[in-house]
């Protein structure tokens, strides 16, 4: 049990040291970032270095789990701000992922969907002017 835990801790240490690779050495230790003056209330602005590394490790693991190769994981982590790391920590599943295709074969379908959306809306707006029902249903 104890051994397993020690092994877990070691693995975690190794994976953290991997996400440290290529981690931009922004400034000497102790420098307070500009984000702090911009928004003292935000948690991202007063993150410690170790908190940032833990968030990087978590986001890196999620990216890998969603199919990003290890070499690219590091490069992709290197563009993320602290606030963005916090937003993605444990949350990639629930983020919006834009990707739907409007291929030529399905282009007509795309158009139809767009027009349907607009037609539905204008009909509903007219209806709502008369009855005021729309507000009940819209969000």
């Amino acid at each position, binding site marked *: 049990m104890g051994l397993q835990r020690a092994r877990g801790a070691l693995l975690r240490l190794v994976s953290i040291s991997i996400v440290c690779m290529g981690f931009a050495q922004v400034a000497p230790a102790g420098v307070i970032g500009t984000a702090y003056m*911009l928004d003292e209330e935000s948690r991202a602005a*007063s993150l410690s270095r170790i908190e940032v590394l833990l968030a990087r490790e978590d986001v890196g693991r999620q990216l890998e789990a969603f199919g990003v190769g290890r070499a690219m994981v590091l490069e992709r982590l*290197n563009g*993320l701000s602290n606030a963005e790391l916090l*937003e993605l920590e444990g949350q990639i599943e629930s983020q919006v992922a834009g990707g739907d295709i409007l291929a030529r074969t399905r282009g007509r379908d795309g158009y139809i969907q*767009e027009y349907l959306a*607009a037609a539905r809306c204008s009909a509903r*707006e007219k209806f709502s002017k008369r009855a005021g029902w729309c507000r009940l249903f819209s969000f």
Partner: protein
Amino acid sequence: MFGARKVLQKSRLVPALFVLTSGCASIPPSVSELPDAAQAVELEGTPFFPQERYQCGPAALTTVLAMSDVDVALDNMVDKVYLPGRQGSLQIELMAATRTEGRLPYQVDGTLDAIWKELEAGRPVLVLQNLGVAAIPRWHYAVVVGIDAERSEIVLRSGTDKRRVTPIRTYLHTWRRGGYWGMVVLAPGELPATVDRSRYFAAIAALEEVGRAEDAAAAWRAALRKWPGDSVALFGLANAYLSLQDFGAAETTYRDLLDRDRSLLVVRNNLALTLAEQGEYDAAMEEIGVALSANSDPVLEKQLRNTEATIRRRMASGER
């Protein structure tokens, strides 16, 4: 059998959901209005990268980067922003990849007017649309390259359509369901056509956090031209100098800030570290001492104590 019945029930449910949740909250005038004299604009020179399946994110980002003179192959961009397990790209990752290409991603105001002004300034706008309905979303990135108010049309590079012309009203509904999200790509030092100070400053601070100090310095200088003497912008510029190890310029800028406002303890913290970097340990200890005695915030207290310890350590190893 049970499964089939379930599907049937579901298929009956779908139209019901459609009606209930497709949501036709109308578009507020603040979003849809354009200036009376708004000329039709179309950036015809915007390149086109037809997307492969699910890969509208990389295609759209490659398009706006190309218009900002960043030459990057679509295949490389796929590696940087496409997330196979989600069959799409995240907004945050589009912004992160913009930074690593040496550009500043800026989220525009969610109004047609803001898009039109960016187009007038020669910048196409990457937007998020939802082409499905609330219950069955179909998230899609496209690039707005033109608006013609008179014909009430918007022109997009979208999917495999090089020039997709959509009625503005239709576009606005798909954009509303995309949270009115759109971004432009700025060269460091370039200001967006419609600028929100705190959003722009946060975008620059993000550049600093990912270690792009030179890009951040250029952006802070542009900010200071628009907001002369702004404390946050000066602090950001000084921090960029410190990262670039231009200690003299950093010290001057921190002191300039303290002359304006002696109560900025975070500035004193960074000034102390800058002095220590130059071997001026006594002066550094004095500054951090002043900050500690004036401070009453427990979070900042921890930071200041850390800095004090760092300076002491450096002093001990420096004098040995």
